């Protein structure tokens, strides 16, 4: 089957790739990583072998872009404590406190668990594909996702119990 117009690729996979970007790069960098991913994909698109798994290809690029960004951030320390939290059109911000906690918990997972959780629950990829993306076996991918979710659950139950003991928050 010949290559489709690139617009169809963005239409079909844009949302899933964004979810993956958000999970592996974090909410502040997700948009930029998404854009870098699709620009790189557009550049290479004419040479993509027809019949390739386009979604897996895009997620591989996204993963690479997220790592690039992470390394660049390590080289350029940002005074995080000084910068105010940027909220876009009031979407994020204080009301999202509880989700920020979950988000932070995902970010604190060991890298393999974090990726496996993101690919499984945000990108809805089958474990066979997740294993290929991560360079591990299908069974190992399944274990990493399960361990990640178990860790998140433990964090959450601890947090919920703590907030119950403290009483209701304002």
């Amino acid at each position, binding site marked *: 089957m010949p290559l*489709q*117009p690139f617009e169809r690729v*963005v239409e079909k996979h844009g949302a899933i790739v964004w*979810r993956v970007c958000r999970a592996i790069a974090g909410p502040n960098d997700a948009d930029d990583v998404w854009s870098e991913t*699709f*620009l790189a994909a557009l550049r290479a*698109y004419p040479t993509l072998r027809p019949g390739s798994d386009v979604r897996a290809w895009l997620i591989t690029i996204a993963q690479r872009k997220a790592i690039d960004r992470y390394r660049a951030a390590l080289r350029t320390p940002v005074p995080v404590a000084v910068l105010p939290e940027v909220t876009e059109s009031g979407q994020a911000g204080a009301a999202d406190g509880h989700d920020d906690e979950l988000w932070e918990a995902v970010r604190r997972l060991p890298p393999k668990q974090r990726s496996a959780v993101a690919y499984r*629950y945000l990108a809805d990829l089958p474990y066979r594909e997740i294993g290929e993306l991560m360079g591990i076996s299908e069974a190992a991918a399944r274990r990493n996702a399960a361990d990640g*979710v178990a860790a998140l659950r433990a964090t959450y139950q601890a947090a919920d119990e703590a907030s119950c003991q403290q009483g209701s928050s304002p």
Partner: protein
Amino acid sequence: MTYPGPDPGTLIRGRLPSHRVESADEPGSDRVRELRRRLARQADRAGLLDVAYRTLDTPVGKLLLAATTRGLVRIAYPVEDHDRVLQTIAERVSPRVMRAPARLDPVAWELDEYFAGRRQVFDLPLDMQLVHGFRRTVLAHLIGIRYGTTASYAAIAVASGHPRAARAVGTACARNPLPVVVPCHRVVKSNGSLGQYVGGVDAKQRLLSLEAAA
């Protein structure tokens, strides 16, 4: 069940912001829509937008407009099936095809003026790469047919240097990649009847009436 409580997938899907904030058909869909618009502009700046396209509502239906960096490369009527036309462009021009209205703005303005009866000549760069040989010669002659007038297939055949090729002229018109702007609707049968049209005979009639009224 190994886990007490809700299924782990539900936990993640339900709690992460991307799944909670946007409850529309696709999570993050608003954000992704905005990112897609931004991507088209970024692609253009980076020189990666080989073909930009948009659609335009007109009295003869929703037209697909597509342009390369050289100029307008395709106009398509709904009966041609826009998805199929875009697929053909991806195969014959470049697969780097994106919806990016900005590049087509001048085309949209001139077409709007034309359909309002305020424009008789199009002043647009054209990319004729989808037409070759005799068909391209024929289209070059069509551009010479003045607004509000018609010519016969036979006359165009003569003008193109092949007097016996009236049928081939008909084929060239039927496959015109740039209808309206390259006015194949101004070519009619020698007996005065309309003949065929790539956008349907109704559309041809409509364009000729528009031009006759102006």
